[in-house]
């Protein structure tokens, strides 16, 4: 059998991020495929061992570029578990606002990113425009557009600025009013449906084999397996939201779930803004000398629900000023490496980019 080898990435319009999918095709059917990771390897886990607990705050958002806040949250949760820190009530709510805004941002980006493999660039432009508004809101809250370093162990770095509620509300209203337009432009569009209906399905029985979590899993097993519901962190147990599920995980179902999560996130942010109490936003972790702050011995695994699934930090402390070992469970590790190797063969060349997009393969968190 004679095959041809094609590459999707690293320098390819169909690949988001810096990774390479090697594809062996026969005609246009993929016979064998694998991901070549490591192009974004920066030695994070080693780097974190070499920095103090507080220094690491500036390092961790850079683990995953598109969604830095879940990193910060997972890191903060892990450190809080180790150090037994009690986070102030208001900080929890602020964290939720930040996390959900980030979720909105990445869902919009992924939804716009769907425009790239399917050729609907208009959707990409619209979605990125809205995402830019979220980045502007982040800039107002945290001072940074992308890497916020806002959620820190012990709370959040500072309180919300005055009047930000108005900005957030106006953005949410705007987004909500155009939600149907987004659906019509995107997944209700007959040409897009022709592309994503029944494309690269992920059968329910193989989800556990791969270890896929997040939307990819929920849309396959049809159960609300969301860490925010199953083991609520922050104050997710005090807000009301639904977890969108689907019985059959094709590209359409995954995108559809993403869009439904957008609605839920809007609802969560609204509830947070309404329920948020006044008070402190941070417990001081140490008096002065933050760089020499030590954390008790221990080994914990803290995880949050990112847009792509379970994002976890395994952290070992030997009681010193630096973490002894930090292990990062990238949310897209299973679908990126094993998923591409096992479930891309048999599909078509045209759809390879759709797997990367709809399963949310994020190379920085695979490589670290």
């Amino acid at each position, binding site marked *: 059998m004679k095959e*041809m*080898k094609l590459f999707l990435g690293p320098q390819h319009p169909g690949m988001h991020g810096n990774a*390479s999918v090697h594809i062996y095709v*026969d005609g246009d059917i993929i016979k064998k495929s694998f991901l070549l990771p490591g192009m974004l390897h920066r030695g994070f886990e080693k780097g974190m061992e070499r920095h103090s607990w507080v220094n690491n705050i500036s390092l961790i958002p850079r683990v995953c570029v598109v969604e830095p806040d879940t990193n910060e949250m997972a890191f903060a949760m892990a450190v809080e578990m180790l150090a037994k820190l009690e986070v102030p009530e208001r900080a929890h709510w602020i964290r939720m606002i930040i996390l959900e805004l980030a979720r909105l941002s990445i869902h919009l980006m992924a939804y716009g990113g769907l425009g790239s493999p399917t050729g609907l660039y208009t959707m990409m432009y619209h979605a990125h425009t809205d995402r830019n508004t979220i980045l502007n809101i982040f800039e107002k809250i945290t001072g940074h557009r992308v890497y916020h370093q806002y959620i820190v162990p012990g709370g959040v770095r500072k309180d919300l600025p005055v009047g930000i509620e108005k900005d957030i509300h106006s953005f949410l209203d705007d987004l909500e009013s155009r939600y149907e337009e987004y659906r019509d432009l995107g997944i209700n569009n007959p040409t897009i449906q022709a592309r994503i209906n029944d494309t690269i399905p992920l059968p329910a029985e193989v989800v556990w084999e791969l270890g896929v979590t997040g939307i990819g899993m929920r849309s396959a097993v049809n159960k609300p397996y969301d860490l925010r519901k199953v083991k609520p962190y922050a104050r997710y147990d005090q807000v009301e939201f639904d977890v969108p599920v689907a019985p059959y995980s094709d590209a359409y179902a995954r995108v559809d779930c993403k869009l439904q999560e957008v609605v839920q996130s809007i609802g969560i942010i609204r509830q947070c803004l309404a329920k948020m109490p006044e008070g402190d936003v941070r417990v001081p972790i140490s008096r002065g000398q933050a760089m020499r702050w030590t954390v008790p011995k221990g080994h914990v695994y803290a995880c949050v629900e990112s847009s792509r699934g379970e994002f976890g930090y395994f952290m070992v402390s030997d009681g010193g000023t630096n973490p002894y070992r930090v292990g990062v469970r990238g949310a897209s590790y299973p679908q990126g490496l094993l998923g591409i190797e096992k479930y891309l063969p048999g599909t078509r060349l045209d759809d390879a980019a759709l797997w990367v997009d709809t399963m949310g393969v994020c190379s920085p968190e695979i490589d670290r």
Partner: protein
Amino acid sequence: MTVELLILVALASGILAYFVGRLNKVLGAVVTIVASMFIFIMIGYMMQDINAGTTFNYNAVEYMPDFVTFMVTYLGLFFAILVTFIFAMVSFFNPFFVEKYKYPALYSMLYLFSLAGVLGVFLTDNFMVLFFFFEFIVWSGLFLIPLGKNNKAAISYYAFSTAGSFALLYAIFIMFAQTGSYNLHLGLATVSGTTEGTYVLALLAFAAFAKLGAFPLNVWLPRALGKAPDAITAVFSGGLEKLGAFVAVLALVKLAPIGDIAGTLGGLTEATFLFASQYIVATLGAMTIVFGTLMAIRQDDAKKLLAYSSMSNGGYILVALSLGGTLGLSGGLYHIVAHALASAAAFLAIGAVSRVTGTTKMSELGGMIHKMPVTYMVYLIAIISMAGIPPMGGFISKWLIFQAVIDNGLILIAVAVFFGSIGSFLYVFRPLAALFLGQELPQHRDKAKEAPFFMLLPMLILSGLIVFTGVMPNIFLDFINDVIAELGGTGLLLGDYTITGVNGVLQPTLIASVFGVGVLIAFIIFILLKKSKKVGLMDTYTAGNFIYTEELMHYSLDFYAPLERLYEKHINITKDFYKKLENKVVDFGRMIKYFFFTNKPEITVFWIIVLIGFLLWGEL
């Protein structure tokens, strides 16, 4: 020189070639070159003798005046010149290929024998002579095809050809019963318009279909052409297949069409003027086009691909001839010329590649252009003509055929014709991309080199003619007008450089020169700009990855996979049908064997007695 003498020369030189070939293989093949060139030139001279309107009648054997006669007609001469030319051109390949055959001397002999057969078929007005030489060609072919070491293909070819021959024979019997003479023109004229004419038409059409490999009698063509020796495929596709076209002309033009459906459709404005028989043949021709195109797109073997393309082009000829009229006839006849030249050139080019690489499978080849640029250009010109793109001959004929189709308002047949026309881009491009272009594969990089001069010569002559038929078609169309006049139709309206169709005027010379001007402008733009840096073929865009294996960067297998997937389940109907038929025949044979030829001799004897008794029933 008279026809019978030419035939004798062909036969004699065939025998000579055999004996010379026994001594020296290559020398025997050289004899074929000399003989076929000689015959072609003689036939060419014959064209000067012929005067418009009159035919020369050589009564060869004086004492049997009506049994063996030869006659030169415009129609016959048209075909004879074309086919002998193809024979002469292909014969240049023989010395380079005889080494590969099991029986080189036999090959040389049969090559000239089939040439003799061709002369006999085309230059006669006698049915028996026609049938005799028809069979002669079939038998030569039967022994020529297995020289490519595949007996099954030969059997397949023989089965269909024999079926065609029998149909021809029955048609002859019917006409003989009507007229009592073997005269072809008389016979056709007599049965024309009668009930017998229907049978004759059907039988002749069957013979033509079998010979052209048209749907549904197409199975042998790709098999035989795919497996036959490389030079023979060119002869078959360019020359011998045209026997079918000749029979089709006899059947469709000389016989009055049957079944006036214009009357039944009279209520519709501008209804078609076709007759049922014409419509049926045209529909089958259209199916041949579609089927051949779809099959050609799927093939991996370049020779098989071209074989299916021959089939598809045979469909064009059938459609054009069945539509009749000035445009249809001239389009069909011109298409015969254009396709004969183009397919011979293409087959020769593929043959030249096959000679150095030993394979014609596109998945095993690639980048031959870097070693065989001239062969590539020949192939390119051939496929441009085959796809019907100006300024090559194929465009003129397709333009005429399109007009005939549009003029008759045949929508469904137009779908097939247009489909075949666009589809031909697809399949002719595939060998171009996979075989000549793409990555240069390491296994052929060292072995491959350009074909020797005497192989290039016929290819270049053919490509020159292909261009010439596209740029100056009027010279050929003049002769075709004579043929049409002889057949009783009106010729095309030709100007100095223009061809006038029903709905438009074409000036091929202008098109060619404007195209030349365009290329000139593009060339000036190109040459004025900075010179490009030459980089290797493997220095291509790989999304930043490193790759060193040429095979993995060469797209040749399953070229049209997405398209093929749409119809691959439905395409094998005829093949399956014949497969089933074959199984049935085999079963029947087994049954007979089981009943009659068991290992108990007494049962066999018993059955023989029963059979004899049955046969003698009436007598006793």
